[in-house]
């Protein structure tokens, strides 16, 4: 029971005023950064990391952990209100969240996202406390061939994700993967497809691409409606909506649990994070639903799936980070640096030698998830109101400004800003041609995972008679092969598939 004792100690630790204030600060900063279009969780944690070097180990981790959790949640606000995912983990939230806002149910969508986020966050952290060391061993079973198939499996999600045209969805996905191959090859080391421009050597960053592909088309949408005050009208808020939504969300235990489990598992795997988890969870929700055709028209299930899963990823991501010292997501990589800076060596022994730090950290993030609800709701309400106050003609340059800040601050590189703008305007043209931003981003996320898995697998496979045999001789690979085939053929299983186009009908 020492774990529980330690946890109790951790909670007790939190009631030191300074730690509490840091947690509250982390939550507020995270909410602001997450909810502003263009500014991502990775950027937030990276920007604030240096100022935590002067704090104690547990204070620093509590602050960064709260910031991370709140940013992932806050990202849902801009996804719902502006159709621009605040972080890569909120891509799926735009699918149903924005249509809800368009119908005047933006507040309801925010409430749904809030409760789902809370559920996912607590689920992920509690699972971390119970299963961390055991799961870490399973995650190690994942070698390059497994990652290759995991990536392929991720791509097949497109078949249930792309609304309307599956073929174009896959072409879009492949274009995304192709974009990810620009720059230095992860294995082999050649500089590829840069056409001798040194600016391209850093490749296409995920955040600049995401910001461009999602925010710029939305800016253009505002240009088209430039004389209007707002894109949609928010309906009058009914009384008791908060309680009603809470009950509605909690009634969907199976949906919540499914999304949280998916998020947690994907979080545990090093290299895969919330950006993949939210889309997989969304497509799983579509698949399990009795009325898959309604997804994309603005139903709460879509928001629940993505928001519960992306917050569950946080706890999942801590598993390899804390037990193996292997950061799985970009944010975890920064947290790993924070631990090292504090002279802590992540690993199972951290739980025994510095249990105080580990448990204060987890207790802090649990408390932050709870605090995040009232702070977030107040913030989300304010943001929803503010957005309707600003005329579209000003909202457009403001978002443009934020996208520039967001894409610049990821690596302080001006060519990322150009890349963001180019992809953004190109993304608008592609959207008009029927290639949605979702699959392209998914391809960009999965590209490096698939490529490293494939080429590293081929290298490791040189021990065998035929190198490629390694991809079909490992049992874990077959799990993903079967899943991929099943997903790919999913539209065929569905007898009737009604074409839905993201609530765009006027």
């Amino acid at each position, binding site marked *: 029971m020492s774990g529980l004792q330690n946890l109790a100690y951790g909670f007790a630790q939190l009631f030191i005023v300074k730690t509490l204030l840091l947690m509250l600060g982390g939550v507020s900063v995270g909410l602001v950064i997450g909810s502003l279009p263009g500014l991502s969780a990775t950027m937030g944690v990276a920007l604030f990391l240096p100022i935590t070097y002067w704090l104690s180990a547990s204070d620093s981790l509590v602050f960064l952990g709260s910031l991370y959790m709140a940013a992932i949640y806050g990202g849902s606000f801009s996804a719902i209100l502006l159709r621009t995912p605040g972080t890569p983990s909120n891509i799926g939230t735009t699918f149903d969240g924005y249509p809800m806002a368009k119908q005047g149910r933006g507040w309801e969508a925010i409430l749904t996202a809030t409760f789902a986020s809370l559920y996912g966050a607590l689920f992920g952290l509690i699972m971390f406390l119970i299963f961390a060391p055991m799961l870490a061993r399973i995650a190690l079973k994942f070698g390059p061939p497994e990652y290759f198939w995991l990536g392929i499996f991720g791509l097949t999600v497109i078949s249930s994700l792309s609304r309307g045209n599956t073929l174009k969805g896959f072409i879009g996905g492949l274009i995304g993967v192709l974009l990810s191959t620009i720059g*230095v090859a992860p294995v082999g080391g050649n500089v590829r497809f840069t056409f001798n421009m040194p600016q391209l050597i850093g490749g296409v960053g995920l955040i600049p691409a995401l910001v461009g592909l999602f925010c710029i088309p939305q800016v253009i949408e505002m240009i088209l409606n430039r004389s209007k005050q707002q894109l949609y009208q928010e309906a009058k808020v009914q009384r008791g909506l908060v309680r009603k939504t809470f009950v509605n969300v909690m009634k969907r235990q199976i949906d919540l649990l499914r999304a949280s489990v998916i998020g947690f598992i994907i979080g545990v795997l090093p290299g895969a994070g919330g950006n993949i988890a939210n889309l997989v969870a969304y497509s799983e929700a579509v698949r399990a639903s009795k009325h898959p055709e309604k997804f994309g028209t603005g139903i709460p299930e879509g928001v629940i799936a993505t928001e519960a899963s992306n917050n569950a990823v946080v706890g999942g991501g801590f598993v390899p980070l804390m037990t193996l010292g292997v950061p799985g997501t970009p944010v975890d990589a920064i947290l790993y640096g924070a631990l090292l800076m504090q002279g802590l060596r992540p690993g199972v022994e951290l739980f025994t030698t510095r249990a105080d730090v580990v448990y204060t950290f987890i207790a802090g993030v649990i408390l932050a998830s709870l605090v995040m609800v009232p702070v977030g709701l107040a913030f989300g309400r304010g943001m929803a109101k503010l957005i309707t106050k600003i005329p579209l003609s000003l909202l457009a340059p403001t978002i443009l400004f934020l996208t520039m800040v967001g894409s610049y601050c990821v*690596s302080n590189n001006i060519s990322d800003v150009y890349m963001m703008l180019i992809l953004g305007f190109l993304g608008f043209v592609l959207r008009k041609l029927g290639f949605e931003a979702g699959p392209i981003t998914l391809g960009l996320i999965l590209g490096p995972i698939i490529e490293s898995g494939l080429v*590293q697998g081929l290298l490791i496979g040189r021990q065998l008679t035929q190198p490629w045999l390694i991809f079909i001789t490992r049992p874990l690979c077959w799990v993903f092969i079967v899943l991929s085939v099943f997903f790919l053929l999913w539209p065929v299983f569905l007898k009737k598939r009604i074409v839905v186009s993201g609530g765009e009908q006027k």
Partner: protein
Amino acid sequence: MKVRVLVVLFALLALTFVLAEKYPSKPITYVICFAPGGESDITARLQQPYLEKILGVPIVITYKEGGGGAVGWTELVTRAKPDGYTIYGTNLPHTILQPLQGGVGYKTEQINNIYFFQSTPCVLAVRIDSPINTFEDFVKYAKEKGVVTLGGSGQPSANSFATVRLAKLTGLNIVYVPFSGSGTAVPALLGGHVDGLMTYTTMAVQYRDKMKVIAVASEKRLPWFPDVPTFRELGIDLVEKAYRGVAVPPGTPEDVKRVLEAAVKEVNNNPEFVAKMEEMGFVIENYDEAASAKLVSELMAYYKELWEETKGK
């Protein structure tokens, strides 16, 4: 009137000269060409307080990541002001290998290194529970199995060339499996997906309870692994390290460079700093500007030869 204006202008000019003489008089920006929280950041953060004390001005650490450091180094030679108020962290062999590879916007010679202050030698490591205990065991294992796989960070990199050279000198069939960083290669070893790692001392020190080192690629034995022989002791001429240093933009005045050089050197002599660095697995090195230039030119010849040999692979 005109005369008066001229006098004022001259006075201003003289004032700027006076100010310029007393370097440093304002905050110095220390640019790290990798992500925050990485090894380059951590070493710079360890230097920061000591440098601030010696130079008497704040040191502001900023980040310019991308392309394995190439984005930052391109900026160093093309855009940074050569006034000594922006200094960059540099890495070897990165700044040699990237221009060799082509496609980057800077040349190795353009980078004016003023001090290499630490290095991380390559080490050959296997899992802690592996039956391989010595390098002889490793050779025996490799011969029995036919092919062994060694993971490492990046390609081309110090890790990859160390592996290639090891294979050449021993005649073993070693396949090098590059990972995107020294950290991401670790789970592949722990999960048994590769037979061993050609990694840096920092990793071996951080994961000392998960992997064991069987040979080190430095001139002499390392303090963390006193019982582990060097490759040279084993009759294999393999010395391979990654160095970290500080560089200034081309055209920086001599006196400014001397001040910075002396400051970094003084930090390196601080026992507190040395202890912190060694705890993390870094080897302290002292290459001043002249020695750095010599080191770079030596390594350039060495890597060029290796590069030509392995080009087709």
